[in-house]
């Protein structure tokens, strides 16, 4: 009994330490945003936030730009997530269930796209987008993000569908279900945890993406928050508290989305663990 309690205490301590390490950057952003100029570079840094400087958040939002940036980021992230999952499910299904010539090559090619850094793709994508009039539009940015995220989404979903017994599909077909119904009503609910995991990957990628966004978007009103925050960094000066306040606000929607999807992700990670 005593050994059990010690073990439990150690586990709680370990969880708290890990939690502290994970949450510290967010906390430090908050403390810095709420610091006075004098506290910012004091020999002994301030460890607790000073809420008398909360105005920096109000000022940041009152300027109007930040709300617009966050909305653009949200549109881009949601668009990327919806489109990559919408296309990733049939692609993953096809890779899992159909036999066709070049299937192995296609799978490897999908992996190749993950090995190219974004910076390498900027110029060719820019030329392509220019031809299709997709520059300076959130739609173009969503497509660029989907191009990068879709392969990994499709491969994860392929793995998830591989793990489903074919007998379930056959049983549904015997009951008269058409192939699309088999996919949407039988397979999709069963791979929901994996879909949630890929949604998190897609959302975070699009939320944080900078290189495409800074190059493809010209109009300030269309910039996402990842680029908007960088606009605060000037050649000769940077308002550090404002940057931290906006950065703190920038992280919150992403954290909220993760908390929403978390239970599905965890279920996805453990799914199949008990399968024989």
């Amino acid at each position, binding site marked *: 009994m005593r050994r059990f309690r010690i073990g439990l205490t150690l586990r709680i301590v370990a969880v708290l330490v890990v939690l502290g390490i994970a949450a510290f950057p967010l906390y430090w952003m908050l403390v810095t945003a709420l610091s006075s100029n004098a506290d910012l570079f004091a020999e002994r840094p301030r460890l607790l936030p000073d809420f008398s400087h909360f105005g920096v958040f109000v000022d940041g939002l009152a300027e109007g730009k930040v709300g617009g940036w966050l909305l653009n980021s949200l549109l881009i992230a949601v668009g990327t997530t919806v489109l990559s999952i919408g296309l990733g499910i049939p692609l993953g299904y096809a890779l899992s269930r159909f036999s066709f010539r070049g299937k192995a090559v296609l799978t490897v090619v999908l992996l190749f796209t993950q090995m190219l850094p974004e910076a390498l793709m900027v110029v060719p994508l820019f030329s392509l987008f220019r031809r299709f009039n997709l*520059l300076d539009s*959130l739609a173009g940015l969503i497509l660029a993000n989907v191009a990068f995220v879709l392969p990994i989404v499709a491969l994860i979903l392929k793995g998830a569908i591989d793990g489903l017994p074919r007998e379930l599909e056959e049983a549904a077909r015997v009951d008269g279900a058409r192939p699309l119904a088999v*996919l949407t009503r039988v397979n999709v609910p069963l791979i929901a945890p994996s879909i949630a995991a890929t949604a998190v990957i897609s959302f975070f990628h699009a939320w944080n993406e900078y290189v495409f966004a800074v*190059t493809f978007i010209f109009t300030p009103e269309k910039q996402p928050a990842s680029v908007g925050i960088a606009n605060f960094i*000037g050649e000769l000066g940077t308002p550090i508290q404002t940057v931290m306040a906006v950065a703190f606000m920038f992280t919150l929607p992403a954290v909220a989305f993760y908390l929403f999807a978390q239970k599905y992700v965890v279920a996805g990670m453990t799914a199949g663990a008990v399968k024989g």
Partner: protein
Amino acid sequence: MKKRRVRRSMMAATTTIIGVASILLAGCTADSGGDDGGVAKISFAASTFGDPGRGPLLNQWLEEFNKSQSKVQVSAAAVPYPTFGQTVLTQMGSGQGPDLIRFDMPEFEAASDAGLIAPLDDLVDVSKYTLLKQPDQFVVHDGVRHGVIFEASNYAMFYNADLIPKPPTTYEQFVETAKSLTKGDVFGLAFRQTEAEEAGVWQDIFNYVYGFGGKWSDGKTLTINSPDNLKGLQAYKDLYDAKVIPKGADAATFRRMFAEGKVGMELNNGGYVTATRGQNAKLNFNVAPIPFPVRTQGAILAPVVINEASEEKEAAATFIRWTLEPANQVKLQEILGASSVATVTQRSAESLKKTPFLPVFDGLTESSLPQIVLGFEAKTPDIRKVVVQNVVAALQGQVDLKTALDRAQQQATELVG
């Protein structure tokens, strides 16, 4: 039969997804622009729009242009400073980008060499204006004008007057002052020292190289590893090793520290005056020439250019002509702080009263040089990368400075051919 049904269903699924995606994307697509009633809308990209102090004032200045015009309207294109050159050059290289750009010299030279900048000779008649000859010569290549100076800003030594009542006048005093000031959370000096700030490190080491009699080239051959360059960069490294700077702090951080009285000295250009006041209006600071053995220092030359791909070149030229008008030049100079502008202007008595050290900057114009490699102007960004990489490696103790410079010389020579 079964296979055909599967195929039909998959086709239906794909069509549905594409349809939904199209509806989603349609909601986010760019405006087509439409008829703006004969008003040409142009964009102007400048990394200075993000500066606290200068940025808001520059935006107001653009608004003054817009009020004065009925057929042309200019707006600031927000391109973040950290990736400004890379972003704008990528856009221009693909036939897009802002109509007007304020470039720093290395990027200006690269863009000019690549034919990305529209020649101005037929668009702006500069003979109507009294241009400052020293900075202006660098924006004319082979008799063709590629830009007009937007800002010319000489480097000088900024010092916190509350910490340093009398500024150092020799290098030895400079080192001694930096050492004596460094204690607790106060540092005697600050400069850039990480590869992440490649362009900034280049600007900083330029003053040490030229201030000790060195130069990056003789116009025909690179001289990166010359004895004078080694002397200058050794001085830079000695200060790094002496722990008188906040190591690891980037420019944004140590400039804020300077504004808060936590850094004693900094070598910076005239634009820093307004930016510093924008961060702390009460700071008691002053400016003196850089106390290095040779009175040669860097200068930020920032020309404004017209994008060759712009469809509104005449409208962009209208903006440039407006900036060159005497009243607008004076206003621009007041916004930019201690910098010079394209034409000869008189400092107002009010400006001199508010900023008594303005003549220090003006007196350095003849001995200031743009931070490019003469004779290899268009290759400056590539040479800069090689030099900064090797110098930073020496700072971090991976290699001794002489070997680093020899290596930089070899790599850069191979690069320029």
